């Protein structure tokens, strides 16, 4: 499964909890963190948990998408779906 499809699947689940204007739109530029992000910290946490669980069920691999290192780079400016795709690729491969 392509990483973007994985993100789409998880987003469908998370979007069920969100109001229409707050929904995750899976485009490369959609900001998870950043000045234009509408996601609150709880939604972000749930989104990452769901993604990690999906990766585990598909690849049998435990990954951690939300670490201290992530905040070092991720919170400074913005973190988009495109960044997430890259991180997923890296973490699933290693």
């Amino acid at each position, binding site marked *: 499964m392509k990483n973007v499809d994985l993100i789409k699947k998880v987003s469908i689940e998370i979007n069920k909890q969100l109001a229409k204007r707050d929904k995750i739109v899976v485009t490369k530029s959609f900001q998870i963190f950043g000045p234009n992000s509408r996601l609150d910290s709880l939604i972000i946490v749930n989104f990452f948990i769901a993604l990690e669980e999906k990766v585990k069920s598909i690849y049998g691999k435990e990954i951690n998408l939300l670490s*201290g290192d992530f*905040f070092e780079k991720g919170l400074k400016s913005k973190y988009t779906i495109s960044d997430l795709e890259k991180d997923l690729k890296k973490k699933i491969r290693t």
Partner: protein
Amino acid sequence: MITKELKKNPNFNLIVQEVIGKSSLQKKKIIKLLDSADKLYFQRAENFSFFFFKYLKKQKIKLNYAINAYLKLCADMMISQKYFLKYKKYPVDDEKKAYENVYNNFHEMKSYMIGLAVSQFLWSTHYAMYSFFIKKITQESSKVNNYLEVGPGHGLFLAQALEKLDKKTNFEIIDISKTSIKITKSIINLINKKKININYKKKNVFNIKKSKKFDFITMGEVLEHVAEPKKLLIKLKSLITKNGSIFVSTCVDCPSIDHIYHFKTVQEIEKMIKESGFVILDKKILPVEDKPMKEIIKNKITINYCAHIKKSNNEK
């Protein structure tokens, strides 16, 4: 409106601008808080910021370090929250580990205390508990000759006690962390205008003799840091005078790098307080997100809790 109020308070404004400039996630929360804040909030926040800058200067700490300490605290909270929701337990489960990782680690503790001090004005629930404390210590001030604070942390509550209580009051401040005591002392030395004598001790509360009695005890956010909070409450009961009272705060579903005891509901906290021989005089229940209580409980969102308590009449 926010900009206008902030501009009137230049020191606080600088902290806010630095934080929101670095974190968009914080920006949204802080703007929401400032939007509903009253004049007193801005006054207190500016007063805190003024002394905070003095403290940073004296300690040769750069503002950037302080802002990053606050953001690290927020990030640690999010990471702990993720762990908690994923594994259904707190990331740390024994006191020794927390002591080694945090309380006995100078750099970690320093960053943690500075971050927490900033959070007192940037987290609505922390500010609400701080306001509740000020109200209670002011109400009780005429009765207090002996004051005890357990785990003073950044010293902001102690600073208020010093301001509200008579200068002849005996102040005993204890903490198991040498670093925490050191930080509290260095902050308080800057704001202790009345030059009140304060007795700081690196000490475990269980080692205070039962013969010692206090009219007011402050124990903010300590219960969740110990494995047996009920024992701690019972110990406090043995230290309080008949008409004395206690400010206590803790939290429900609040994973952190050093929280050990998991309170699952507000009712559980209150049951423990009552079973330890206290009555609750007043309290605040403060969820960290602005959502209906049903949703807060269902999604295990942190609830801050503080109460003003005293010995029940059945107790000696």
